[in-house]
């Protein structure tokens, strides 16, 4: 038994949650002692090579690749955690949920005031993932075991949660770490 494996993904997120993870400063060294990263933008491993104990998911699902990726994580991780508001409830990207898709594309690629697009079309092609009808919170697509709220959750929250989970100790989150107003 080596170190527990951790995988991370940024779906429809801004990478802010990953930044927050890196924000644990020198504890990053401890983290590397504690765990081994598998599929993650942190080490740029693109495919799961082993089953992981924990998957950290940033962002909701805006397109087919996000959804597919998330399902892949579910299959390959024992525990999945929604990290940040986008993963938990869609967040800022979900602002498009009230607007029909065609209208969104129209505005974003053709009509916006700063747009220069001589093709007159929204980008399209097999290498561009298709958008889903709306941005889904992760829990609407797969079972999520835990949710860490925040935009992003503070580094310390992420650290405490990971340590508690991997050392099988009760999670102690002081009020300041889960207070958001």
């Amino acid at each position, binding site marked *: 038994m080596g170190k527990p494996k951790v995988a991370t993904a940024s779906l429809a997120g801004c990478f802010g949650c990953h930044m927050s993870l890196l924000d644990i400063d020198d504890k990053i060294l401890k983290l590397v002692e504690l765990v081994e990263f598998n599929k993650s933008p942190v080490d740029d491993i693109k495919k799961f090579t082993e089953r992981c104990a924990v998957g950290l998911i940033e962002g909701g699902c805006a397109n087919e690749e996000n959804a597919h990726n998330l399902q892949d994580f579910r299959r390959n991780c024992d525990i999945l955690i929604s990290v940040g508001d986008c993963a938990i409830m869609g967040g800022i990207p979900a602002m498009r949920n009230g607007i029909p898709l065609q209208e969104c594309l129209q505005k974003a690629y053709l009509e916006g005031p700063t747009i220069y697009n001589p093709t007159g079309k929204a980008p399209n092609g097999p290498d561009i993932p*298709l958008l889903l*009808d709306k941005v889904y919170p992760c829990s609407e697509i797969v079972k999520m075991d835990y949710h860490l709220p925040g935009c992003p959750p503070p580094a310390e929250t992420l650290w405490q949660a990971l340590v508690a989970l991997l050392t099988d100790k009760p999670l102690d989150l002081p009020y300041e770490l889960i207070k958001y107003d």
Partner: protein
Amino acid sequence: MTTTPKDLKKEIADICKACGNDRSRLMDIVRDVQEKFGCVSDEAINLIASEVSVHRVEVESVVSFYAFLSKDQKGNFVIRVCDDIIDRQAGSDSIISAFEKELGINCGETTADGKFTLEKTPCIGMCDQAPAIMINDEIVTNLTADKAGQIISTLKESGDPKKLVAEPGDGNNGNPLVNSMVMNNIHQKGEIVFSEYVSGAALKEALSSSPKEVIRNVKAASLRGRGGAGFPTGMKWDFTRAAEGDKKAIICNADEGEPGTFKDRAILTECPDMVFEGMTIAGYAIGADTGILYLRGEYAYLRKFLEEKLAKRRENGLLGKNISPKKRLGGLLKSKSAFDFDIRIQMGAGAYVCGEETALISSCEGSRGDPKTRPPFPAQKGYLGLPTCVNNVETLACVVKIIEKGAAWFAARGSAGSKGTKVLSISGDCEKPGVYELPFGTTVSEVLEKTGAKDTAAVQMGGPSGTLVAANDFGRKICYDDLATGGSIMVFSRDRNLLEVVDYFMEFFIEESCGYCTPCRVGNVLLKDTLEKIINGKGLTTDISNLESLGKTVKLASRCGLGQTSANPILTSLQNFRTLYENLVKTDETGMNPSFDISKALKDSEKIAERKSVVYTTE
């Protein structure tokens, strides 16, 4: 309609003036404008705002809040079909389709000639004569789809919904001022509410004792509120009396919005004098000079009749300045107890939450029907800041009998913790739906037997906010300590799909939530979504526990009684009909959420991109 801007300006100025350009009368003003012009347009909102000197947003927020008010132009005849659960089960969709076909519009639309608007509405308090609809203020009951054509042609020819009343209903429904086809269907009268009574006698009796004695009497009778919560009435009066201020108010809650409740309608039709007398006695006891009857918009057809009763009482010295029933009744009255008290009727405009007492007060003050944060409680600071007591129609009727017959007589009736009788309104799958006044302590089975209900699978006690009771609990008693109800009892036979009932009730609460607090505004939607997931066979075992914990959160964290009870359809059906849920859910080991449908999620995209997904094989 050809209203020139100048006409509009003048008409609105007149309407506002008739209400004293008083901001607190905004409800009456916008209701009048709506009635006159078929809408409260942006322009009308501006005009009203300047007439009563408020910002336009205050007027607009009232217009947008109430179902019977609208910024968009409505037809001359607004047809509102009750599509609440009892009417649904009695075939309201066929009624809606018949009207849609007849008028050539969809429900929610107005005909091109501006004559007819077709809408749905929750319970209008006619469940014992369902399917029922409203046409403007007129009520049409016991409808069948084949009557739609006739109704439309009568309206087209005569222009008068009254012409639809071929034969008026029983009792005072036949009074010329009511002249409605509504039936009372009072199948059982009791000793307290539907009993003999002489107008003015109890008031005279009350005035011969001190206000404190009156309150002591009401306390000794152990009278508890009939509106649902069952708060001891005497105590509420005491609090209001003790509160600081020389002016106070008493409000009679005739909003009767809880689906399946129609007993206050029967009481107001048959015993209005008793209710007004109860209000007057309450006014005397707590030291109030202001009385308001808050009448739900659906009961507007009773308004003229009730106004006339009030006028009669004023004539007879039972209301107004120096109230002294002695004139008519020849009794001796010490002048020290003569007091001033009058009652006005405040019409509602289609909002369930306005039955909640603080929302009701907001509405009486001419605002959106938003509940208020407590404390301060109404007894301390209510209507326009006055200490205010809100009581249900039936509670006030009971007061009259307590004064007349004595506290001991009253307390000798009913069960241990619940004295007196309860007026019940029973609807659904039974032979004799209608109004029954029964002593507290009557069991559910006894009620079912009386009403001729057979093959009953479940009884919804107390409306959607109450309890869904299963057959093994039919021995339970109707009283505050066991099965409490504000009066609503809906009977569902074995043929009914109970989860559909629960689903509808959630829809009702979502629609009626005022939206102020998140647990209620969002929580109820999440509850309904999860429930529908289960109903559609996409639910997991974990969804049942999700419903339970979310339901408890909504109950715990909501700000007013609506949100504190809105999860009850789910929570009580989970408690009493758990297998209905368990039979539908799956256990899952894959961790994939079965309600996520990738084909559906990609459908729009594939159409726009004119290609199929390369990641998934979609349908």
